[in-house]
């Protein structure tokens, strides 16, 4: 009974593209499609090999793919118009060594190197998609507020039932008596990679504020990055 339903669904989809004589061909299996850009699932890796695909604009003759990760990964490769997909190996082993967020940019240009368009995306690698994740279940745990390595911060309008109609996200990171960084995202669910190692953030206390413009709810957190070990003065 279930197979019959699946077949009917696939048949109906295929029929729109086929002539009357052709619709008796064996239909393909139906495919589930993730059309929910509001879900973090869209922006999360579940294997170490990600098949990137794109469409070419009419004026584009070549493209350049740039990938940057918090861990220092920088990767660039070029394509001609004969290629419309690329299998990207995100990390070398089957299980990632650490969480990371990668920014992807695909820049299209003409033969004369005039840029005619760009696509951007962000993909998160979180350890809980590949194995065990660390969970802090204790309120007031000192470990909760400490940061040491680069960190992956989740955001999702559905954290609060009142923000489910949100259209964008804002994450503000403010160092006490220091720099303020305002990050705007055009989606409402995903992960942000906050690179603090080998950055200009330094050490100290940071106030984080997550909001969804147009919505009233606000998430806040105070985090501290401390220096490791003792600091000695040297004469």
């Amino acid at each position, binding site marked *: 009974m*279930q*197979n019959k*339903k*699946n077949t009917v669904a696939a048949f109906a989809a295929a029929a729109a593209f086929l002539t009357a004589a052709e619709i008796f061909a064996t239909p393909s*299996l*139906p*495919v*589930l*499609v*993730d*059309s*929910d850009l509001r*879900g*973090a*699932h*869209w922006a*999360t*890796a*579940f*294997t170490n*090999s*990600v*098949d*990137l*695909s*794109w*469409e070419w604009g009419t004026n584009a003759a070549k493209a350049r793919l740039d990938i940057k990760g918090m861990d220092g990964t920088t990767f660039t490769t070029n394509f001609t118009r004969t290629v419309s997909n690329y*299998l990207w190996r995100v990390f070398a082993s089957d299980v990632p060594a650490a969480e990371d967020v990668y920014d*992807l940019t*695909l820049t299209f240009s003409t033969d004369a190197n005039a840029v005619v368009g760009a*696509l*951007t*995306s962000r993909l998160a690698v*979180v350890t*809980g*998609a*590949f*194995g*065990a*994740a*660390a*969970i*802090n*279940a*204790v*309120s007031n*745990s000192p*470990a*909760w*507020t400490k940061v040491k390595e680069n960190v992956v911060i*989740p955001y*999702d309008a*559905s*954290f609060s039932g009142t923000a489910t109609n949100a259209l964008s996200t804002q994450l503000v990171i403010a160092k006490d008596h220091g720099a303020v960084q305002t990050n705007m995202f055009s*989606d409402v669910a995903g992960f942000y990679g906050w690179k603090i190692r080998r950055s200009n953030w330094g050490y100290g206390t940071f106030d*984080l504020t*997550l909001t969804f413009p147009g919505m009233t709810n606000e*998430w806040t*957190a105070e*985090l501290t990055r401390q220096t490791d070990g003792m600091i000695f003065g040297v004469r």
Partner: protein
Amino acid sequence: MTGVRRNLEETEMKTGKAMKMTWAGLASCLALSVLADEPSIRDVTVRQRWPWSRLVDVSYVLDCDPTQRVNVSFSVYNGAEKLSCPLDALSGDLYTVSNGARRIVWDPTKTGYTNAILPHVRAELTPTTPPLYMIVDLTKEAGATNQIEYVYEADLVAGQWGPWERNAVTNNGTPVESVIWTGVTNDALYKTKTEKLVLRRIPAGTFAMGTAVPPTLSTTLTKDFYAGVFEVTQKQWALVMGNSYPSFYSTTREARPVERVSYLDIRGSTNNVPPVNWPSTGARVSSTNFLGRLRSLTGIGDFDLPTEAQWEYACRAGTTTYYNDGKGTPGVLTSNAQINVLGRYKWNGGYYWTGTGWLSGYATIGPANGTAIVGSYLPNAWGLYDTHGNVWEWCLDWFIDNALPGGIDPVGYSAVMANRVRRGGSLEHDATYCPSSSRFAGTPHEPYWFIGFRVVRTLP
């Protein structure tokens, strides 16, 4: 791997099939997977909402036929250690889940761990067919082995739970599709009227309520819920409340419905801290009243009285007729053969014949008079007993005469009124008080000897 039954994903990885990602700026979409014949779960992610809150998101993708709805059972481990996970620590896509990307939210703070960090947490998710019945053993503590059992249709029709019936009720000649467990009345075997609380799963749906035959007020309930198969009995009340027997009809009392319990005894009142006052305080109940104790005993935080709409939906069980037997309206409404087999009312045992006259309110009479042992009459199409007669049943809503809210998931009137709704008629009344649409007012603090209740559990 996340310790999850991800057969599809494992197959994909073995065959070298890679994850496919497209650009958000394009119209094309992410191909997830071909449909599986059996529901399966993959792409599980466990991650805490750090630094925003201690809640943990367990995201997953359910692959199944788009018409199918399944439950997802959830277990969580730290390494090899299975963690205690009471049901009230979970929310999200656990029940009647359709295919696609979904999420369960786990609150680890409700588990009382002493270690500061659980370093190796993984989840195990299993899709299951929603059960027909849920059985709660009131003699066991929350989390005890087999405290909560489920009865699945496949096991029921295989005879593993004794007698059952399919499509036993027709609504004006049209069968109401349903499988019901008639063996549930065997208390000697199953303790279903005394030590265990049995609830039937009621599917979400749209129906018509009201006094017209057929009824006309369109009402939609968007969430599945479990409804008590029986009215709560005196033994069940005593097990939850600590050997308390408040009822009037005391002879062979254990399997009779509990009565002389007020609405406030069941839920709590505005005098509680924090106050309890449906609907303004929502599902909150007092921890020391029946529902609070039941929630604590079971670890299930959503036991409650039914809303009036839930009650009538469960009572009608797909019928649109005067009673829920699906038959025509009887010619004589005060006393008739139709209701004689459906429930206890004034003229089939509710009153007691002394030899010279009818007597009501005689506390020590046997079960042939006064309240009936629950499940003594015919069930409705969804296997609920005694929705007509026996004791009136408290509902959550405030009572307003001749006014039903209808609409989507109605919760009744928000303004504070004098009375709460009671439904279904009782042993004290003519059959005219007992149809599916019957409703009356009850003072919330009054413990009447002809009003009891049944519990529901609305699924998230």
